[in-house]
């Protein structure tokens, strides 16, 4: 499943593509919302590993504007719940992810991102 937490951890790894290769840009994304158990401690733990701007921009592209542009210093319960929903409950089931640098297309099918490269594309 491509949830936004996973998307926030994926970068392009095609041959020679080493800068500006994150975040991948969604195209033709088909979304599904699936509830997950809220665990505020888990979200708090994940925060230092999240690239905030990439997350906010991506959520916006997918039509969700609930996160503030700047990462707030204080995380209240409300915000943790919003993060929970955006990071863990939004699933991209079908579509593509495109590298902002080299335009390599990574397809998503049945919720699974295919990051495999052909022999000549491997770094």
């Amino acid at each position, binding site marked *: 499943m491509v949830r936004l937490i996973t998307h926030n*951890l994926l970068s392009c790894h095609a041959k020679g593509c080493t800068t500006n290769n994150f975040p991948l840009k969604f195209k033709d994304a088909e979304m599904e919302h699936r509830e997950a158990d809220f665990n505020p401690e*888990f979200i708090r733990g994940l925060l230092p590993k999240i690239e905030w701007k990439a997350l906010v921009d991506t959520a916006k592209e997918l039509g969700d504007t609930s996160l503030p542009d700047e990462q707030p210093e204080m995380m209240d319960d409300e915000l943790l719940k919003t993060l929970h929903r955006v990071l863990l409950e939004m699933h991209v089931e079908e579509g593509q992810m495109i590298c902002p640098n080299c335009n390599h297309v990574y397809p998503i099918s049945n919720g699974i991102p295919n990051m495999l490269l052909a022999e000549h594309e491997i770094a």
Partner: protein
Amino acid sequence: MIPTPNLSHLTAKDFERVYEPAEDTFLLLDALENDAEDLKSSLPLICLEIGSGSGCVSAFIGTLLGPSSALYLCTDINTHACQCTVATGRQNKVCLESVGTYLDRSLHTRLKHCVDLLVFNPPYVPTNSVEAESAQTSPAIASAWAGGVNGMELTNTFLKLAPVGLLEENPRELLAPQGRFYLVAVKENNIPNILATMLNEHNLAGKVVLRRRAGREHLHILRFEKQASQVQT
């Protein structure tokens, strides 16, 4: 006692294309279960399984740690295995994040120093190199077992690509400072050599935490941790 994940949704047809959990898988589950208290108290946030196949091991880890306690990332080169992994997650009420990729590629940059629990049950069966290589380029069932010379070709590739605990400047360092790495191996893989190499080249202290004989295979579960002096605070 943590139950073995329910795999009743997978069929014989699936297991023509995806490795069916066997003694090696179960030994790995046993090793993880033996360490359950330690693993739980270390509060892992990010788990990564390389080559998740049916998804049995990650579903087990998810049940052990709690479905909402950590992120369960799984990679496999075989996209049918990726589908099985997701299905097994659903069947066992753990959300498994399946990514179709070779080893840790596309994740390694962002996961640097982030993986708390790393698990790899590699294709460890000694075969010739050609067989191992073609298994990895046209991923089907053989990619789950054909290990090349000494059964170590893919393991070596991964250990070189992801030399957890190596120098700071190595971009492929995956393990978090307190992270743990579990690796399945057989006797033919030359276990003393794996342990020595990991220690000398990657500063990872490892030991055999469990071993069992299953038919011809002398199965071993190796567990690696960063050496105390290497842990950054």
